[in-house]
């Protein structure tokens, strides 16, 4: 190689190494403010939060939380990252890879144990948050979802509950009593088959039971399994590769393309029972009965109940706030979380996201009083069951979905599928 070429390569290599070294540095990270009096602390608090939607109203409500936080930390800046649950993991993982961790991370129920096991979340014990505090001030049933190895890593903000609804008119038309809803899997199947309508070609024109799982059966399976008295995980060990687990999966399989076409969803991606496209089905945690929503007549036709194949349960997810273990402003992060969990903030988040405030007596909250479905799910928060239970749940839940779908579509044997998934759990 000529001398010019050699020197060019050397210069280029030096620039590349310099850039690589520079990118590995922590130049953009603040000095820690922990131990500094709040009034004197300066820096930027990085907040990852999917709880405020990307709307003017969402930003306005977030600014109120920031204003409250600034009463304690007047010189700190707050840098929000309004993620969605779809890109939450990308945000967290890329922030770690970039060496710029978030100080406050709001995640869902399935996240906490996985991130706690990876030591990405800080123990909230030093801030006086214990399971007793959560039981006393928040939703006790959410404590297990926030704990890992006997330590608490997250504080519940709002609960995202699911119920089951039926159309009274459809029940009456089919000769069923809407005041005595079918709650067990066996009863549900019988009723759903009666309620399913078909055209002359046998094509389903009204779904008998909407499993609310066009592409994912994971949460429905978790709820139905728990309703038999079988939690998905027991003491951190998988509890679904058994007779109840197989029976539940077989039940879902027997419903698909029998009372509901696989993959069915409407353009608004709303529960089909709201619009009468299904006679029964799984719902979210709120319904808009105004003319902008489904209308009062539709609302009046709905009756709500919970799955009960031996144990009455209600699926609950939710938003939980944690402090990043690599945060540079842990004290400020806790102050921010305190602003976030004030009833006024929680009520606003609940309204924006159609979820239930995760404070004591949520049944009396403005959101619960705003519509009959929220009132119903708020009254059942102590019956909450949630998905997850193992340290690697976040890693395997995608595969859980895929394999359940393959079993439901008859591509895999349900028993072998569950045994395989059970083997992947750690």
């Amino acid at each position: 190689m000529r001398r010019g070429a050699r020197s060019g390569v050397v210069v280029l290599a030096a620039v590349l190494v310099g850039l690589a070294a520079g990118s590995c540095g922590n130049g953009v990270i603040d000095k820690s403010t922990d131990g500094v009096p709040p009034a004197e602390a300066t820096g930027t608090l990085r907040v990852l939060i999917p709880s405020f939607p990307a709307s003017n109203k969402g930003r306005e409500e977030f600014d109120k939380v920031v204003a409250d936080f600034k009463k304690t930390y007047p010189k700190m800046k707050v840098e929000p990252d309004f993620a969605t649950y779809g890109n939450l993991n990308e945000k967290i993982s890329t922030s770690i890879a970039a060496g710029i961790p978030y100080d406050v991370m709001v995640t869902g129920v399935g996240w906490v144990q996985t991130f706690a096991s990876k030591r990405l979340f800080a123990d909230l014990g030093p801030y006086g948050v214990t399971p007793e505090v959560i039981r006393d001030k928040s939703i006790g049933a959410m404590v297990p979802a926030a704990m890992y190895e006997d330590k608490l890593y997250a504080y519940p903000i709002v609960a995202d509950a699911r119920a089951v609804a039926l159309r009274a008119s459809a029940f009456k038309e089919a000769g069923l009593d809407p005041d005595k809803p079918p709650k067990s899997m066996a009863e549900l199947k019988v009723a759903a088959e009666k309620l399913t309508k078909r055209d002359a070609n046998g094509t389903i024109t009204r779904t008998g039971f909407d499993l609310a799982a066009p592409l994912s059966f994971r949460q429905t399976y978790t709820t139905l399994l728990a309703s038999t008295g079988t939690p998905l995980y027991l003491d951190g060990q998988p509890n679904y590769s058994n007779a109840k687990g197989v029976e539940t999966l077989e039940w879902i399989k027997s419903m698909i393309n029998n009372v509901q076409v696989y993959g069915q969803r409407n353009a608004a991606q709303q529960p089909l029972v709201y619009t009468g496209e299904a006679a029964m089905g799984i719902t979210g945690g709120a319904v808009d009965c105004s003319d902008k929503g489904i209308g009062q007549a539709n609302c009046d036709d709905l009756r709500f109940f919970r799955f009960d194949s031996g144990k009455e349960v209600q699926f609950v997810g939710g938003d939980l706030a944690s402090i990043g273990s690599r945060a540079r402003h842990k004290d400020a992060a806790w102050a921010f979380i305190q602003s976030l969990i004030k009833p006024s903030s929680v009520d606003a988040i609940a309204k924006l996201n159609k979820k239930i405030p995760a404070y004591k007596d949520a049944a009396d909250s403005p959101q619960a009083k705003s519509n009959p479905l929220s009132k119903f799910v708020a009254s059942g928060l102590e019956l909450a069951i949630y998905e997850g239970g193992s340290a690697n749940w976040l890693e395997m839940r995608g595969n859980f979905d895929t394999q359940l779908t393959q079993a439901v579509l008859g591509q895999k044997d349900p028993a072998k599928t569950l045994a395989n998934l059970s083997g992947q759990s750690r």
Partner: protein
Amino acid sequence: MSATLERPTPAVAAPRRVAPSKDSRKLIRSQVRAGWLLLAPALLHSGIFLVIPIIFAVALSFTDYSFGDSWSWVGFENYTVLFGDANFRAAFVNTVMYAVVVIPISMAVSLAIAIGLNQKIRGLGFFRTAFYVPTVTATVAIATIWLWIYNPGSGLANGFLSLFGFAPNQWLSDPGTALPSLMVVGIWQGLGTKIIIYLAALQGVSRDLLESSALDGANRWQRFVNVTWPALGPVQFFVLVTSIVGTFQVFDLVYVMTDGGPGTETMVLVLDIYQNAFQDLRLGFASAETVILMLLIAVFIGLGRLLQKADVND
């Protein structure tokens, strides 16, 4: 009796090595410097955005890194697990299937349309623009439109087929039609770029040769096979390579339209890599999959080169 006339071979003197003068050496050095200077931005870009990530990806593929605060070297374990992984196998097969179907069909259709657009027809500008529009439209927007077209209840596809008495199809949720449905979108979306490239190449085909062959009595098909097709050789290779890279890296279309489902029916390698890395947080495992994808693309490009050489030799 015949005599062969032979052209006398001129005596060629061995080239004498002449040492460059001082001025010419200076000129060469300055040209070399200018060359490196001009190359520097591209090399810098490639170094930062290609070489470093590739080195990191290969290194990560031998670790169990999962964004936690500890990791360890695991040797070839990720690769061993990968080949036993059902999702990877499905993604591998689907990606190859997608490429094998989409590449030749889209190349053939593009060439046919380009030949059409190379004629003197009315509204040429409109057709050229119309065929190029999908290329400059965001894939997410295209996917959203096709989601509506494939909507089982109110979509255009079922609406059109119902005119002929066909029952509605669950295009994207039926395991039998999900991947072919995506292939149709992939073929349609990729036409614009290929058409433009083919069109440019067709306009570069020698008019003299075409006229000569016409004068020799060659018909249209013969002119295409013997003049146009050989002249398109280098462009065919370019289109083939870019198509291989593009189809093996298909992601956004699948992500928006099916997310790999139902089951793993439309799972493709890049989506599986993305899910392993950013949904399941298994970066070491995903890096091993990335290395496999790089090798797979290299193999297919190598096959393309071999085919190209064979075509030239023929």
